[in-house]
């Protein structure tokens, strides 16, 4: 039997313990409130070393909670994948960095947009592993959801 192992960062998103694959992470930071700018009413960007990076409210994208009206004192995980540009994911807290065993969701449930797989934490609970590509490409997320709706 082979086990698939993934290096991940354990974070908290809208109260849920979630794993972000380490290969997708560029850096983590805490932006100053003045570095966060709004594009019209919805889109937000964060100013990082001379570049504007789109801010992704992961908690809202996954439907855990309503979108945050004010981004304040949040931690940002900067991600970049092969298929997507630099994005800033909003998380509540960063716990740890560790290797996790990948458990499929398809076997007993089905595929979930924005979630790559699941894993089991030390306390026995299940944590979901983010599919960063899908989360940051808002277009494909909305397409998935209208398909599912």
């Amino acid at each position, binding site marked *: 039997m082979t086990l698939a192992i993934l290096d991940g960062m354990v974070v908290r998103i809208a109260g849920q313990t979630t794993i972000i694959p380490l290969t997708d992470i560029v850096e983590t930071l805490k932006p100053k409130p003045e570095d966060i700018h709004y594009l019209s009413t919805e889109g937000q960007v964060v100013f990082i070393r001379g570049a504007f990076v789109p801010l992704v409210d992961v908690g809202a994208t996954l439907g855990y909670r309503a979108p945050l009206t004010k981004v304040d004192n949040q931690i940002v995980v900067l991600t970049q994948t092969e298929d997507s540009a630099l994005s800033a994911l909003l998380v509540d807290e960063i716990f740890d960095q560790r290797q996790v065993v990948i458990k499929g969701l398809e*076997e007993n449930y*089905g595929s979930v947009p924005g979630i790559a797989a699941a894993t089991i934490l030390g306390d026995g609970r299940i944590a979901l592993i983010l599919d960063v590509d899908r989360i940051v490409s808002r277009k494909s997320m909305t397409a998935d959801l209208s398909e599912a709706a």
Partner: protein
Amino acid sequence: MHDKNETPPMNENKFISFTISGQTFCVDIMAVREIRGWAKPTPIPHSPSYVCGVINLRGTVLPIVDLGARLGMPSTDPTPSNVTIVVQIGDQLIGLVVEAVSDILSLKDSILQPTPEIASETSKAFFKSLVALEGNMIRVIDLTTLAPAAQMSAAA
């Protein structure tokens, strides 16, 4: 009704009965893998409202379905007093949250009545047959209608 030539007259099946919001249901005991206490599930994004989430069942990711909500009744409060019945549907394992497991019933095929035509086709689809037992009506659930694949298409 059942064809008497095909099945022996004394054909008995065992069922596990349980209650949700005062109604009694049962499922084929052969599909039941285990009955376990409540564990707090991890919610799944964009799942139908009756999917509570997933729990860890000895290393397997087990989806938990609120059976009451699935059947269109008020959802069962997620409290430690509830029970999860782990059932196998095809190749998939899912956990059904119910209020309480009551009994194991031996039911002859001959006393299973087909579900009568009622207004709601959707709720009729969930029940294979009905049984009158000691003045109670027991609903026999057709587990295949609860399979996650069916859930996903129902959500679509």
